[in-house]
């Protein structure tokens, strides 16, 4: 089936099989490998992207379901070499170690801060609930997000 998906502002037209997951469309068809596959069961959040303004796990969406939609991935955050305040905060707070979960964490936190620029501690924790990190113990990730909350 022919689909047209706008990813980080660029329209990609491709012929995809209905069985293809959105994460594979992103990684394999258009070579955006920033979004990761961790669990492939909707549990870990490493594949999180923003689809038409809402945060989703791209291993739980078919590429054909994104036809005509706008997708934002981690590659779309920085402006060239200029990191977003949130990305810089992850570096400053040592909020990543291996970095595997980081693209998903960044998308979840970006989505939170867009709809709620001044989240409470509890709201930050709730917003990151769908993202698992096996390295940091979460504390520094929480601190990084909190530091850019207004």
């Amino acid at each position: 089936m022919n689909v047209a998906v706008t990813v980080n502002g660029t329209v990609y037209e491709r012929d995809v099989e209905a069985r293809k997951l959105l994460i594979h469309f992103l990684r394999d068809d258009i070579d955006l490998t920033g979004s990761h596959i961790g669990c492939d069961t909707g549990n870990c959040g490493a594949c999180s992207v923003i689809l038409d303004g809402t945060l989703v796990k791209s291993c739980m969406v078919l590429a054909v379901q994104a036809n005509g939609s706008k997708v934002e991935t981690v590659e779309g955050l920085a402006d060239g070499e200029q990191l977003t305040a949130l990305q810089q905060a992850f570096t400053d707070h040592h909020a990543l170690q291996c970095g595997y979960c980081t693209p998903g964490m960044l998308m979840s936190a970006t989505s939170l801060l867009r709809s709620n620029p001044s989240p409470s501690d509890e709201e930050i924790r709730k917003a990151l609930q769908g993202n698992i990190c096996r390295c940091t113990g979460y504390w520094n990730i929480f601190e990084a997000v909190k530091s850019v909350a207004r």
Partner: protein
Amino acid sequence: MLLREVEYVKPSSIAEALTNLAANDGARALAGGQTLINVMKARAASPDVLVDLSGLEELKGIELGSDGTLSIGPMTTYTELMDSAEARARPILGEVCSKIADVQVRNRGTIGGNLCANDPTNHLPPLMAAIGAELTITGAGGERTVPASDFFLGVYMTAVGQTELLTRITIPAGKHDGFAAVTLGVDGTCIVNAAASMNGSLRIAIGCVDAVPVLIEVESPDTVRAAVRAAALHPPDDVHASSEYRAHLAEVLAERAARQAVGE
């Protein structure tokens, strides 16, 4: 994961969706996909055709009637229910939806999918049974409405036939409701859950202890535990809890939900 080959259609009316379902007995409705896509990955089911309901405006939206009745389209997501001013007429709805999994799952998962999946550990089947929801099912022959207590037939089985759709969820007015669960981690999968609603008598529905929610009716929270014991439950055993422990939780959680419902 590469799924088995499947066809995909996106109908633009309920009538067209029903035609798509009737055209192939391997056709299945696709709502939020937050259960079905995992089921397809695990090859526990391999539909031949996915009928994506996301284009059907008729299946979306929440209306609040003048008598307080809520009419909810099955394609309404948990996040939409939590954010809806109308749904606040029955506050337990948003409260329970906010405990399902995480933001991403709540942004995609739908009330209709949750009920039609009828996973015995899901949050919404016992809730709908306790608060007396009515479910409208549409097929080629027209519409019928069944009470939630008759909707759930077995593990992953409901009154919705393969050529039919759940098209509306109707919830009567009421505020005296409760919900309690013991979960795997905060907002995780339920080990046992219970929903309660006070409307003359107390109606309690317990989930995770049988293939379908177990309904119990009592006069007051003080008699809940005895009534659950009298129901002689034989819950499943698994790595998370023994059958005995689940039976114990059923008593405790039914009472907790009941006390919340009566405002204690």
